């Protein structure tokens, strides 16, 4: 029995710590593949400390965590003392009230705080961007408070009340008694409360997501939107460091606890010399000072400087960031235009970007949505017409990307990238004779090795091309037929994927999948057995992501300057080399890797492109209908 218990305990520990171990190992791996440890390197850590953007995010996270911890610990301790002094019945009521926010789902807390901030900020204070660093900070303080109270309360209850009486008896005012006696007694509770608040604050995503503006984003919020490309190994390095930080804090907390317990039971060395005690106090004081200086420094530098701040809201990993010897596009822009500071934040789908914008309370100057979303934004008056006098580089945009269906008069958008959706397959396992069109995704020969789009629009698109329907059909009977077709595919499917495709295809766990050409190129770079096929005869999706200025923009001229900068052929070339999507500027190809430029995957001939079609914005009821059908297919 004892043995089983021990084995169980060990198993539980393995289960708990293996994910962290994998991450830590991955952060030292020379290769990019988690499943394959190629060699030991510290390069990821070097990369991490060279990445100004990631460090900025880390700094943001630390700023919010440290300040909110300090404030919440102070107020929480005061509140706990107040609650403790209530009559027992009231105390119980108040304690359960303070505990509720902790058990409340984060999403509920996040949404309600966001609503409150937007309401107070826009309606009552008349500010356009209500969601800022300050709202984020207030939210973090709010959800940290209960943790501090919860940790301090038991210490107050354990404390002999006559200690405070004794202090007052000896001449202390209640305030002096608190600082000279009570504070010492409850210090372990305060410290553990502070550590817990700090860790909670550092890893919070859900609440931060809803209450942060675009000018100040924390690390978890940004990482979550990294979907355009797989997570880079330097992020593993950062996570490893964060994990170690939390780990050290936790160990410190437990050591403190153990020492406090031992003091109570076992008699320690009888005499603590004055010198030792002085040393301990000086050390504690010094530590507190260092923390104060650090947070002061962080606060000072976290404040935006006196210059124009341009808020760019883009897909995650959708601009060259300096990694893999690429150009750091945003840094380059800031160097050329020193009076402008770019605040870059990211989203992971058109729909999320849309909801952030329509919720209000934020300032965004540049967004890069996809074609059908642009049509929707135009129809809802959410975009500003561009002043093309400020965007002279528009002249480089190829003719075929002007007068598009989503922006027929070229008033609101400047194309950023474009691409196709095709079939990625592994030549080692898949007979090329079978790859003749979309039907290969239904081929029973490869059952269990086929992946499918995890979003409704792309999944239905494939069914529509295969069945010969218009991709923008609003006919419910046709849509139902598409759903049936997709249901028939389920027996041969391995899973529905978005980002997971990178790992599964590169590891050869799956052999066939539809995906965006740019990403397929990335994967083909990692695994040479992979090949790309565009079913030109059946038709395929041709998408364009274009730069726009939303109506909530504040710095329209700077935004146009930024758009113009990205249309500079040299910049666009360097940028596209990293993103791997296709550029609408033929002039940029002169500055790009020639191999990509002549690659038929990235740049199919005009003849082939003529078979492509783009998604239009579907009426609300139809897109909901499609969404419903797709849910049924996935769950059915």
């Amino acid at each position, binding site marked *: 029995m004892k043995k089983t218990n021990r084995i169980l305990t060990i198993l539980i520990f393995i289960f708990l710590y293996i994910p962290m171990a994998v991450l830590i190992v991955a952060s030292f791996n020379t290769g990019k593949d988690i499943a394959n440890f190629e060699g030991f390197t510290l390069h990821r850590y070097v990369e991490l400390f060279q990445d100004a953007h990631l460090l900025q995010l880390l700094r943001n996270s630390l700023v919010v965590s440290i300040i909110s911890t300090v404030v919440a610990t102070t107020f929480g301790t005061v509140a706990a003392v107040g609650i403790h002094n209530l009559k027992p019945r009231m105390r119980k009521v108040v304690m359960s009230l303070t505990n509720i926010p902790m058990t409340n789902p984060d999403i509920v807390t996040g949404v309600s705080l966001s609503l409150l901030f937007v309401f107070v900020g826009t309606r009552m204070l008349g500010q356009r961007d209500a969601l800022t660093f300050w709202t984020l900070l207030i939210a973090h303080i709010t959800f940290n408070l209960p943790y501090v109270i919860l940790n301090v309360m038991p210490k107050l209850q354990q404390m*002999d009340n*006559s*200690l405070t009486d004794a202090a007052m*008896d000896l001449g*202390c*005012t209640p305030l*002096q008694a608190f600082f000279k006696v009570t504070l*010492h007694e409850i210090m372990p509770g305060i410290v553990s409360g502070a550590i817990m608040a700090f860790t909670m604050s550092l890893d919070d995503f859900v609440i931060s997501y809803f209450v942060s503006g675009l000018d100040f984003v924390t690390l978890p919020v940004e990482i979550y939107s990294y979907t355009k490309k797989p997570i880079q190994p330097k992020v593993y390095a950062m996570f490893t460091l964060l994990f170690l930080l939390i780990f050290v804090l936790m160990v410190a907390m437990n050591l403190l606890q153990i020492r406090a317990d031992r003091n109570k039971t076992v008699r320690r060395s*009888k005499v*603590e010399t004055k010198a030792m005690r002085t040393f301990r106090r000086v050390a504690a004081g010094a530590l507190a000072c260092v923390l104060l200086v650090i947070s002061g420094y962080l606060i000072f530098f976290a404040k935006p400087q006196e210059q124009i701040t341009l808020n760019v809201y883009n897909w995650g990993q959708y601009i060259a960031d300096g990694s893999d010897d690429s150009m750091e596009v945003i840094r380059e822009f800031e160097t050329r235009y020193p009076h402008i500071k770019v605040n870059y934040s990211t989203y992971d789908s058109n729909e999320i970007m849309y909801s952030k914008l329509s919720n209000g309370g934020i300032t965004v100057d540049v967004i890069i949505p996809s074609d059908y979303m642009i049509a929707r934004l135009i129809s809802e008056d959410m975009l500003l017409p561009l002043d093309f006098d400020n965007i002279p580089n528009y002249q480089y945009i190829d003719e075929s990307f002007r007068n598009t269906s989503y922006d027929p008069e070229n008033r609101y958008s400047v194309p950023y990238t474009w691409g196709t959706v095709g079939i990625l397959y592994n030549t080692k396992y898949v007979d090329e004779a079978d790859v003749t069109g979309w039907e290969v995704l239904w081929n029973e020969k490869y059952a269990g090795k086929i992946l499918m789009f995890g979003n409704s629009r792309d999944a239905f698109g494939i069914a529509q091309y295969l069945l010969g329907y218009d991709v923008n059909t609003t006919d419910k009977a046709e849509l139902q037929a598409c759903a049936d077709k997709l249901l028939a595919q389920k027996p041969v499917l391995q899973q529905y994927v978005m980002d997971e495709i990178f790992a599964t295809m590169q590891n050869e766990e799956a052999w066939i999948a539809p995906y965006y050409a740019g990403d397929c190129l990335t994967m083909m770079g990692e695994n040479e057995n992979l090949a790309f096929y565009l079913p030109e005869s059946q038709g395929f999706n041709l998408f364009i992501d274009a730069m726009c200025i939303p109506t909530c923009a504040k710095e329209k001229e700077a935004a146009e300057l930024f758009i113009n900068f990205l249309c500079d052929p040299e910049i666009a070339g360097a940028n596209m080399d990293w993103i791997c999507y296709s550029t609408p500027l033929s002039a940029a190809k002169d500055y790009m890797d020639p191999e990509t430029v002549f690659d038929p995957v990235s740049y199919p001939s005009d003849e082939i492109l003529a078979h492509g079609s783009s998604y239009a914005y579907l009426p609300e009821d139809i897109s909901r209908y499609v969404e419903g059908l797709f849910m049924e297919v996935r769950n059915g």
Partner: protein
Amino acid sequence: MSKELIRLQNLVMEFDGERILDDINLYFNDHEFLTLLGPSGCGKSTTLRIIGGFLTPTSGKVLFDGKVINDVPPYKRQVNTVFQRYALFPHLDVYDNIAFGLKVAKLPKDEIDRRVTEMLEIVSLKGYENRRIDNLSGGQQQRVAIARALVNQPKVLLLDEPLAALDLRLRKDMQNELKRIQQATGITFIYVTHDQEEALSMSDTVVVMDKGRIQQIGRPEDIYNEPKNAFVADFIGESNILDGVMLADYKVRFFGRTFVCVDKGFAPNEPVDVVIRPEDIDIVPQSEGHLVGTVTSVTFKGLNYDIIVDFRGFKWLIQTTDFHAVGSTIGIRLNPEDIHIMHKSEYSGMFGDYSSYSAEYDELTEDAGDEEE
């Protein structure tokens, strides 16, 4: 006795509608050692906390040197307290605990040093300056607590069951120690305890309390010899309490016999409580006895035997140095000065019958007394 220092006037204290103190009137003289004595829940600690300033009375006045101090907070009163469980500060060593009040008062460093050293000597703790509190024994902690209070040279020292947590031997030593310190310093001590022996041996004045009311105030001898009612008679020492009738001055009738006594001033034929202390009863041969009874139980107590004797169905406790076997018949004599007469009170009939006596019973009640508030 010298001048009056503290006076409590019509003091009433209520918690959640429950009356803890009911019209307390009491004064304390300078240099006095006064003890509040009573069972748990009698209100003695509450009285002490009101004097210390930790509680504000529901009504009534607390006067210090003739001035009302109801609303003066503890830190402004010339009073210091020794708490029941000492309430020493665990994060400070012995020296800093004792120096606490002086440092708060911002006295010069050399004066603090002088007074703390002096105090350490008074409580015999020299050389313990840098000890941590949790490395001290109970008795040592007790002495630190006393030193911490006395070093501030208060006019009055309040002691809330300070010896309750110590074992018997240490308790006896500390009782002497406390008395010595009180006499040496001349500070007024207000002492709270449920231990009647402690109260009687240390105090100048004893105040017996029960149910939020003062039952009797007096010198220890008077309290013992002239209890005012059945409660006091029973709480202070052991008593056999019988129903009797005061026929006239110096004449009381009980058990069908008329006895001569030393009490007077009762109404003719007034029903009274008759108190006879177990140690005052003389055992004599049957033929010479006023009363004759049968021994039903004998307990050896060291100094004496506690024997229970059945007199016509009413059982008495008698303390004697001679052994009497269970079942033997003995006679007793009562001298006039051994008989104490009390007016009937609400406590009449509740105490003084040893029909259900057992030796353990005493110890149980004593332990229960420790749980005061």
